[in-house]
């Protein structure tokens, strides 16, 4: 009996909540990339404290998950902003359009470097993208041109005689991670296309090219260490022979424990990532629903805070947190574009 009394009560409670929620929402909702999360949270907190308004709520859902939520529709049940550690795909843009999210403002905020590091107890290592590809790809070119063999290399010396005679053991993020996608695209593919015949394959058979250049070996040399970069740092400390792949901010915070490998003789530093000489770095974005500006209070304030020099400038507090800023001219143009709420035209070169 009691049971029967409760069910309508619960349904009534939920119905009344849904009625109130479809009205105005007081605070901004942000979803998306776990890479942009540490930066957007800082901006949100500063904005909340300085303005005295509610602090935006930020969920870390991953870039893909964020886009899916963001493009589901317009209205206060859907997020206002999504963070992304890659550019919006054309398929996602289309999905947004079909779901009524017509006007989307794209903001590039800066760069994130991906480093390959080892414990400070072992010797520093010099790598090229070609070395990385040969050491970590599932399949590598064989003796004859056009021939592919399963990756036979077990030590770094076999990959490149200049490297030490230690086993290949690399700790990195799992396939669900945006860092892994970016690493495959920037480091593996970067090394992969150094082979002329593979580069020629790109035009002939794009899928085969991508499968070859983006697939990481699964025979134990590459160890999936989970999404937590702090864990990789700890494991490197315990095992000085291993290398690890993670975001630049973790190298920045743990300089006493781990050292970054030079890639093509470029050291991963704040400056080398900012001037783009360090080859493994990716742009960071966020996307704003224009229809929500003015409906959900505070979006403009949040955008102004994010695109202010004290936040994303060279001496700004985001740089302090490890985000690599855009060059000054690009920053100015981007800030102007953002503040005038200029949406994407649909003619951008999206993938």
């Amino acid at each position: 009996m009691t049971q029967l009394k409760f069910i309508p009560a619960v349904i009534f409670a939920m119905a009344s909540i849904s009625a109130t929620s479809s009205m105005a929402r007081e605070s901004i909702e942000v979803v998306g990339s776990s890479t942009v999360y540490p930066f957007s949270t800082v901006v949100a907190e500063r904005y909340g404290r300085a303005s005295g308004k509610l602090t935006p709520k930020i969920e870390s859902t991953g870039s893909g998950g964020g886009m899916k939520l963001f493009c589901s529709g317009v209205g206060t049940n859907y997020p206002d902003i999504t963070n992304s550690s890659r550019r919006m795909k054309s398929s996602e843009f289309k999905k947004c359009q079909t779901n009524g999210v017509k006007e989307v403002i794209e903001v590039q905020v800066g760069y994130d470097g991906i480093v390959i590091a080892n414990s400070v107890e072992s010797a520093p290592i010099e790598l090229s993208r070609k070395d990385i590809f040969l050491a970590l790809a599932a399949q590598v070119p064989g003796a004859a041109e056009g021939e592919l063999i399963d990756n036979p290399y077990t030590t770094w010396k076999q990959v490149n005689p200049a490297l030490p005679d230690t086993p290949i053991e690399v700790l990195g993020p799992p396939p669900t991670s945006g860092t892994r996608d970016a690493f495959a695209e920037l480091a593996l593919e970067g090394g992969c296309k150094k082979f002329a015949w593979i580069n020629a394959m790109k035009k002939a058979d794009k899928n085969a090219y991508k499968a070859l250049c983006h697939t990481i070996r699964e025979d134990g040399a590459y160890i999936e260490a989970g999404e937590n970069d702090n864990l990789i740092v700890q494991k490197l400390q315990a095992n000085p022979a291993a290398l690890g792949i993670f975001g630049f901010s973790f190298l920045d915070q743990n300089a006493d424990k781990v050292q970054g490998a030079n890639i093509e003789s470029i050291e991963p530093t704040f400056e080398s990532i900012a001037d783009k000489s360090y080859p493994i770095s990716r742009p960071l974005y966020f996307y704003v629903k224009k229809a929500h500006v003015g409906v959900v209070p505070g979006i403009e304030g949040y955008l102004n805070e994010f695109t202010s020099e004290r936040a994303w400038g060279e001496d700004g507090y985001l740089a302090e947190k490890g985000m690599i800023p855009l060059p000054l001219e690009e920053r100015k143009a981007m800030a102007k574009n953002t503040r005038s709420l200029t949406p994407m035209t649909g003619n951008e070169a999206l993938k």
Partner: protein
Amino acid sequence: MNKSVDNLSKIKRSLTRRNRAEARFQWYGRVAIFIGLAAVAVLFIDIIGKGHGAFQATYINLNVSYDQELLGIENLSDPEQLVMGNWDALPKLALREKFTDVSGRRDKRRLYGLLSNGAGFDLKDRLLANPQLLNTTESIWLLADDDIDTYYKSWLDGEAYAARLSDKQVVWIDQLHEQGLIHLQLNSNLFTRGDSREPEQAGIRGAVMGSLLTLVLTLMLSFPIGVSAAIYLEEFAPKNKWTDFIEVNINNLAAVPSIIFGLLGLAIFINFFHVPRSVPIVGGLVLTLMTLPTIIITSRAAIKSVPPSIREAALGMGASKFQMVLHHVLPLALPGMLTGAIIGMAQALGETAPLLMIGMVAFIVDIPGSFTDPATVLPVQIFLWADSPERAFIEKTSAAIMVLLTFLIIMNTSAVWLRKRLERRW
């Protein structure tokens, strides 16, 4: 005669063997318990070793002058002016006055980096609480930056970690230390504030409140529903294929991975009923789904353990079936039900996976005050801090784990205590 002696010696021989087997078995048990306890001890030592530092924070003593002109404020009661006020200027000026020889933009930035960037807001709160301080100067302990905090603590322990500091900052801290103007004191922020991306300003209050709101709702929903379901199934429902089917399903649900309940919650509560994401209501509803099977199963066991003679006596005295259940069975079964509910709640308190799907894994600064405010919970806070790059979050993570473990120990101990206290044996 001969035969019985033979039997006796056989028994004697086998007796020593059997005794030895028993002694061996007891030792296996002791070793197993020892391994278990050792694992718990290692866990506790590791967490307390890492986390004890978080209960203290580094503070720097400075002379702050609340200069009205510097702040650009005419009237303290005007909220508009308060928002526009140049609060950051107060700690900056105090630092410049302390280290008068610092010049140049870069060095000044480093100097300002000694203090937490929330120091200006802390002074604002202090001035608002004590308006008579305006245009006066006072000596006050201000919160240091997390890098300074990490360095100072590691330096006191004899293993200085200065990689995030410049040489000048190290010299300044040395000077402050010699003058006794830098020290460690109780980190009250940890218990009074919500989440922050600055480790020195981050606290668990928001997560504790979120956990509390979510659990209250979970208990309010799952206990009555679970208990009434258990009573119906045990006392009223006919025993047939349907009730067997329901029983199998309830037992199954208790073993389903908790992330499934999150997916279910996302589909039903958020996508269908449009309950907002990230609020304690949706968290409580999802955790209710998760704890219901546990509560139903333990409640049924508690009802079963009430002897049939009680029921028969009540019915024999002319009580209706409903009166028999309400007046006799339920009070006797209640201690067991409560124990089950507490264990279910403890389980719900430690859960993160189902909350991931419904948006409670989020950065939320403001402390939730009602069931409809965005909130997160303690285990999620631990997860988020463990994932943060800042070094100082390592000790914060362990401190939050200590708080969560304390709550769990209290809940589980009270379950044992309640059982001992209220249980009646026949």
